[in-house]
C-alpha cells in the first residue's frame, strides 16, 4: 500500500472516529458532562484562548529552562560516565536505580523546599529530563568504535584532538537522541509540578477545569497542549535527521 493511500486511510480513520464520537454524544450514549462532543470542544476554544495563551507560554517557557539545565548537567555527566570505564561500572547502577524510581515521589518535597512557583516547575523539568540524557549519552560514549580511536592515536593525535575530532562526532547521534527524548520528560515534569503545586501554567488550569467539571474547556486544553508537545518533539527530529545524515 502506497504512502498516499496510508495517509488517506489515517485521515479517514481519524475523521470517522471524531464523527462517531460526535454522534455518540448527540444520541446520548456518552454523557456530555464527562465526555463533551468535539463540536462543544471546538466551541470552547476561542474563549479558552485568552486564558490559555499566557499559561502556555508559562508552561513551555518553564520547560525550556528546566530542559536547558538538564542538558547542561546531563551531557557532560553522560560523557564522563561513558568514557571512563571504572566510573561507569561503579556509578551506573546508581544512575539506573534513580532513573527507575518514580520522580513523582520527590515532587512534593521539591515543592516544599522551593515553594509554589517557577523554581519548583523548572527543577521538576530538570530532574525528569536529566536521566534519559545521562543514560543515552553514556551509552553512546561507551559504544564508540575503538578502531577509530586507534587510528587517531597512530596518527599522533593529542588527547584533546582525540576528544574533539573522534569522540565528539562519534557520540553526537546518541547525544541528540537523548536530548530529543528528554524533551517529553521535561514537559512531563513541568505539567506534574503545575498540577501538584502552584497556580501557574497549563497543568494548574487543566486540574482546575477538571475539578469544576468544565469538560469542553478541559478537552480543548488537553488538545492544545498535546498538539504543541508533538510539534516540539517533531521539529528536533527533523534537525536530527539532517545532522545524523552520515548514519
Amino acid at each position, binding site marked *: *500500500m502506497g504512502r498516499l493511500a*496510508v495517509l488517506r*486511510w*489515517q485521515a479517514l*480513520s*481519524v475523521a470517522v472516529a471524531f464523527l462517531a464520537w460526535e454522534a455518540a454524544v448527540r444520541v446520548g450514549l456518552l454523557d456530555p458532562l*464527562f*465526555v463533551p462532543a468535539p463540536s462543544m470542544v471546538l466551541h470552547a476554544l476561542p474563549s479558552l484562548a485568552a486564558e490559555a495563551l499566557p499559561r502556555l507560554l508559562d508552561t513551555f517557557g518553564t520547560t525550556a529552562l528546566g530542559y536547558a539545565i538538564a542538558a547542561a548537567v546531563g551531557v557532560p555527566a553522560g560523557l564522563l560516565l561513558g568514557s571512563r570505564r*571504572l566510573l561507569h*561500572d*561503579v*556509578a551506573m*547502577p*546508581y544512575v539506573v*536505580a534513580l532513573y*527507575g*524510581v*518514580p520522580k*513523582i*515521589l*520527590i*515532587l*512534593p*518535597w521539591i515543592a*516544599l*523546599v522551593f515553594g509554589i512557583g517557577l523554581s519548583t516547575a523548572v527543577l521538576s523539568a530538570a530532574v525528569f529530563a536529566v536521566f534519559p540524557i545521562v543514560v543515552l549519552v553514556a551509552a553512546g560514549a561507551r559504544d564508540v568504535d575503538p578502531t577509530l580511536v586507534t587510528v587517531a592515536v597512530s596518527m599522533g593525535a593529542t588527547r584533546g584532538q582525540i576528544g574533539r575530532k573522534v569522540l565528539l562526532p562519534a557520540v553526537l547521534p546518541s547525544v541528540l537522541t537523548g536530548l530529543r527524548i528528554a524533551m*517529553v*520528560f521535561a*514537559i*512531563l515534569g513541568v*505539567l*506534574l509540578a503545575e*498540577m*501538584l503545586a502552584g497556580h501557574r501554567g497549563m*497543568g494548574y488550569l*487543566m*486540574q482546575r*477545569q*477538571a*475539578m469544576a*467539571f468544565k*469538560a469542553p474547556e*478541559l*478537552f480543548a486544553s*488537553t488538545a492544545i*497542549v*498535546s498538539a504543541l*508537545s*508533538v510539534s516540539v*518533539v*517533531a521539529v528536533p527530529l527533523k534537525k536530527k535527521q539532517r545532522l545524523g545524515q552520515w548514519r
Partner: protein
Amino acid sequence: MKLWIGRAVVLVVALLAWEVAASMLNPILYVGPSRLPAALGRVLSVRYLPPLGSHLWLTLGEVVAAFLLAVASGLWVGFVLGLQKTLGRIYEPLLAVLYAVPSVIWYPSLMLFFGLGPASKIAFGFLLGFLPVTLSVLAGIRQVPESLVTVAVSMGAGPGAVFRKVMLPAMAGTLAGGLRTGLALSVVGVLVGEVLGARAGLGYVLTYAYGLLMTAEYAALVVIVAAAVLTVDALGALVEARVRRWAD
C-alpha cells in the same frame, strides 16, 4: 570484587554527605538519613498517619488491575496491528504520535470522568502501560527472522503452527521486555494518580504527610515506596532475563 567495594564507597559517601548537609539546614525541610528509621517506626505504628496496610493493598490492587488491562489490550492491539500488515502500516504511526505526548496530560480528563477513586488511577496506569506492551509486540514480530518462518512453512506448518511454534518463541524476549516496561509504567501511573488527587492509597498517604509537614515521615515513606518499586522492577528484570535465556 573491587567493583562492589567501589559501589559501597559511593553509597557511604553519598549518605554521609546527605547527613551532613541535612544537619546544617532547616530540619523541617531537610531530613538526613539518621532520622529515617525513627520516622519509619512512626509511620508503621499508625498513630499520626492513616493505617499503611490498607493503603498498600489498595495501591497494589490498582497496579495489578492497571497492568492486567494494559497487557490484555496491549497484546491484542499489538498482534492485530503486527500480523495484519496493512492495518499496522496505517495505525502504528498514529500510536507513535501518542508516545510523543506527555502522558500526564490525560490525567485531568480521567479524573473528571472517573472521579477521585481507584478507577481513575487504574485507568491512568492502564494508559501508561498499554503503549510499551503494544510497541514491544510490534517490534517482536518485526524481528522474527524471515528464514525461521520460511523453514517452518517449507516443512508444512500452517499459520497457526507457525505462530505458536516459531513466532511466539522468537519474540518472547522482546515481549518480556515490553511487559516489564509496561509494569514499571503502570506502577508510575498509579502512583502519579494517587499523588495528584486521591482519597486513599500510598500516594495519598505521601501527600498527607507532606501536607502536615511531617517531612521525616514523608521521607521514610518515599524510601519505602521507592524500594518497593525498584524491587518490583528488579523482579521484572529477572523474569525478562530468564525468558530471554530460554528463548535464545
